[in-house]
């Protein structure tokens, strides 16, 4: 399926076309389940989250028209934001956060990098301009849904310091991305 095909499906879903919704689920559910699983690290929770995600896609597909995201990225954003809502709402942090992070290496594999291709170059180049551990914190937050509290623990700095760090990194990133 080309991005244009996915776009068409999303537009048809916004017009409450159930056949399009079925096709969209077939084409994209493994990607979005991967997102939920990576962030939630629990199959049961990820399964429940995936349901919520497609309910949201059905009800808010019309919003795709006003987003500048590509269709797949828009769907990933819906899934990622929902999964992060779920982990933020649950108990503070899993006890074995370090072990869990080891399992899910924030760096994407070579295939994923190839997929990201040239559009991914800009964000990756700008992340490379940050200090190494700060870039790792940003990538970890984005891909794993790490909270400020979890990042502070991992990098052994106070919470406020972590937040200052990350905000400064975001300002530097913005400066680079807008260059």
């Amino acid at each position: 399926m080309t991005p244009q095909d996915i776009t068409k499906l999303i537009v048809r879903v916004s017009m409450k076309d159930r056949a399009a919704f079925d096709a969209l689920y077939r084409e994209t559910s493994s990607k979005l389940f991967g997102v939920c699983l990576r962030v939630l690290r629990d199959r049961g929770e990820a399964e429940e989250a995936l349901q919520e995600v497609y309910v949201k896609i059905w009800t808010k597909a019309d919003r795709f028209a006003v987003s500048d995201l590509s269709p797949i990225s828009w769907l990933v954003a819906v899934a990622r934001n929902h999964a992060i809502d779920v982990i933020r709402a649950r108990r503070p942090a899993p006890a074995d956060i370090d072990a869990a992070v080891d399992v899910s290496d924030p760096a994407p594999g070579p295939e994923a990098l190839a997929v990201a291709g040239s559009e991914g170059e800009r964000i990756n180049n700008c992340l490379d301009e940050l200090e190494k551990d700060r870039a790792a914190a940003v990538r970890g937050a984005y891909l794993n849904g790490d909270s400020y509290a979890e990042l502070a623990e991992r990098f052994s700095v106070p919470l406020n310091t972590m937040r200052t760090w990350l905000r400064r990194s975001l300002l530097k990133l913005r400066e680079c991305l807008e260059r």
Partner: protein
Amino acid sequence: MSLADDIGPDGGGDDLVAAEYVLGVLPSDERRQAALRIDAEQAFARLVDRWEVYFAPLGLGYADVEAPAGVKAAIDRRLFSGAAPGQAAPSAPSLLSSLAFWRTLAVVALAALALYIALPFFGPPAETPRERLVASLAADGSDVRYLAVYDGRTDDIGLSHVSGAAPQGSDFELWVIEGQQPPVSLGVIPQGASVRMPVTEVLRAKIASGAVFAISVEPAGGSTTGAPTGPVVAAGDLKAI
């Protein structure tokens, strides 16, 4: 801890909050506040969308994992089985209220969209309903989006400009493409949020037979060769509604 404590008043304000929301690092209560602002404040929603676009390439690194069987059936039960008692029973009350919120919002937005599409076409009542086709024109890697509506009754195309501007000194040109045939120009798209373009007899047949619309960037005034010369920045095919 507020932003001002850290970075100072010029540190980015809303834009940094938008970035933190997209990154996902905000604590639960601040994240909820940001989500409410996305719904209520268009300017804030645009900041969030821009950060989503910046970070989106990282998201392509997520591995595909096949979803467990049965999830789709559960989704369909929740969405389409009517108001059967006991169906909608998610655990957290906040979730329930947020779902209700989304549904209401979606219905309102859809009704508004439908009205928006249909309003220009409420002429004198026609004796027989004529075909109405809609296309969402967009392309990967481009921010140009249009919603195109063709109404067989009025024989013109209504174009709603959603986003994206033509570069300085150039115009958008609308093309209709039928199968393997070369694109045929419908003309330069006039400036404006909502514009109409007339359709000739010949093009009417093409449109009715399931053609694709495409928008290219052309020198001001349109292509002089009769074929697209610039990049295609948006395209989409026509669906009956």
